[in-house]
């Protein structure tokens, strides 16, 4: 086995586990993937992909300022994430500019501010790890923060699981029966900002939106039940993270990019082979349909 360690599946999987940093990376990335995958179902159904992109890019200046001031980076990211959405809503309401344009200009503005701040502050901020993620070099304090935020998001989503589903499906009915739609809207936004914060450690700010939409989109092609969609979304997110990290370890590739590519391939697989909604319509092929 030791002679050609690379070629047996067994050592392909176990060898990296002998490194502490790899065990940590695999565990933390799985946790982050699970959180993002959970949220992903809601974002894809609500049609918030662009919003996810906006929030995840807008957290950039928050992360930089928080690092510079020695505050938890999640706090800064959260403020700027929610702030960007508030600003988008404000500009949309007060001007004639269309929503997608407003979203685009606000998040690029925030993102640019973040980049400028990094160049000005020049502290120990590693721009590369913010932009592209660094799951292999995650620090202990980051681990604690990530676990805390992840648990918080999972608990919130679990408690308000059904209300959020109703909010995505038919907000008007929710309002009519006295459910606080305003609260649910901001709850989902809060979870989005928090998930973006933990997700950016895995794959970086630029790609974190993939963590927030691809697993949900994959699951959406595979099921007609909301609960199943959530489970599939979480599983596909975790599996892609593990595959991505292993591939990047063995072939010396950028980790964040590998994780997202793995997600994209799983999506493409579903796109082709999903029984009912894949373009090959395998269900018809095998069953002769009805």
């Amino acid at each position, binding site marked *: 086995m030791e002679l050609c360690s690379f070629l047996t599946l067994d050592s392909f999987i176990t060898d990296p586990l002998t490194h502490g940093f790899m065990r940590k990376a695999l565990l933390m990335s799985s946790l982050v993937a699970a959180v993002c995958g959970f949220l992903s179902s809601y974002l894809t*159904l609500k049609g918030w992909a662009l919003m996810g992109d906006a929030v995840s890019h807008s957290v950039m200046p928050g992360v930089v300022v928080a690092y510079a001031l020695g505050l938890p980076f999640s706090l800064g990211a959260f403020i700027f994430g929610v702030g960007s959405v508030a600003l988008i809503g404000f500009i949309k*309401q007060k001007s004639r500019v269309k929503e997608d344009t407003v979203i685009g200009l606000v998040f690029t503005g925030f993102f640019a501010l973040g980049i400028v701040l990094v160049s000005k502050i020049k502290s120990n901020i590693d721009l590369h790890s913010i932009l592209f993620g660094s799951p292999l070099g995650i620090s202990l304090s980051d681990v604690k923060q990530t676990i805390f935020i992840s648990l918080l998001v999972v608990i919130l989503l679990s*408690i308000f699981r*059904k*209300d959020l*589903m*109703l909010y*995505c*499906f*038919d907000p*008007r*009915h*929710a*309002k*009519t*029966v*006295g*459910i606080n739609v305003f609260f649910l809207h901001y709850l989902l936004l809060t979870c989005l900002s928090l998930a973006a914060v933990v997700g950016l450690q895995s794959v970086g700010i630029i790609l974190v939106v993939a963590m927030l939409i691809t697993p949900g989109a994959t699951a*959406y092609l595979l*099921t*007609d*039940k*909301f609960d*199943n*969609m959530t489970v599939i979304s979480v599983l596909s997110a975790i599996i892609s993270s593990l595959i991505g990290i292993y591939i990047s370890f063995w072939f010396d590739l950028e980790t964040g990019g590998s994780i997202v590519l793995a997600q994209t391939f799983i999506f493409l697989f579903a796109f082709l082979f999903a029984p009912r909604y894949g373009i090959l319509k395998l269900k018809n092929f095998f069953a002769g349909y009805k």
Partner: protein
Amino acid sequence: METINYQNFRIDAENICVDYNGKVALYDANLRLKPGQICGLVGMNGAGKTTFFNALTGFVNISKGKIRINGESVRSAQKDQTIAYVPQNEGIDSQFPISVWDVVMMGRYGSMNIFRCPRESDVQAVKDAIERVDLTDHLSTPIGNLSGGQRKRTFLARAIAQRASILLLDEPFAGVDIRTEKLISELFIQFKNEGKTILLSTHDMIHVREFCDLVLLINKTVVAYGETSEVFTPENITTTFGGISPDFLFGPES
């Protein structure tokens, strides 16, 4: 003027105005409906029909005027599950991964605990509602696999499960099959006998004559309101539709 007992009215909207960022969608609109009345809401696209519904459900805030539902505020009507809204088929995402059972169960959410765990009584209410709209064979069918008529019945079942005393229906007859249309008209008679109040918007003038005791013609504000036989005249309809004659709208036979 004599004092009015507002408790007598299921819906009492007085001089309501709604504007979206300064753009007026509805102004000085009045409507009073009693238990057991069916009222048709007729107007062009953009005349404020949906806005009127939104104001009654509290989905948008009114900028002026007053709405009382069973003599109380819209807020308490929401808490009491008084109003059910049955959306237009186009108004919902038919590809949402959700079954008939789940949609109808949403009618019970407002009266459940925070985790929305169905109790025995909720399950029974959902079962009964689905039976009344004749969808028992489709309990676990995803709504994406239903026909337009079946989907409409699913949302009617949600309103029934909610046990609301006021039903707001947005284009209930649009894009439904004959069977669904018949079932809806039978349900209307049952609802009327149960003392429910129904406000429905429609483009179909024949349905107004067939089902509605009262009719509310609107074009940003109330053009005419009253008994269908008195108010639903070609002149009023022409005014509502901005000068286009009813002959042109629904054929010479009307």
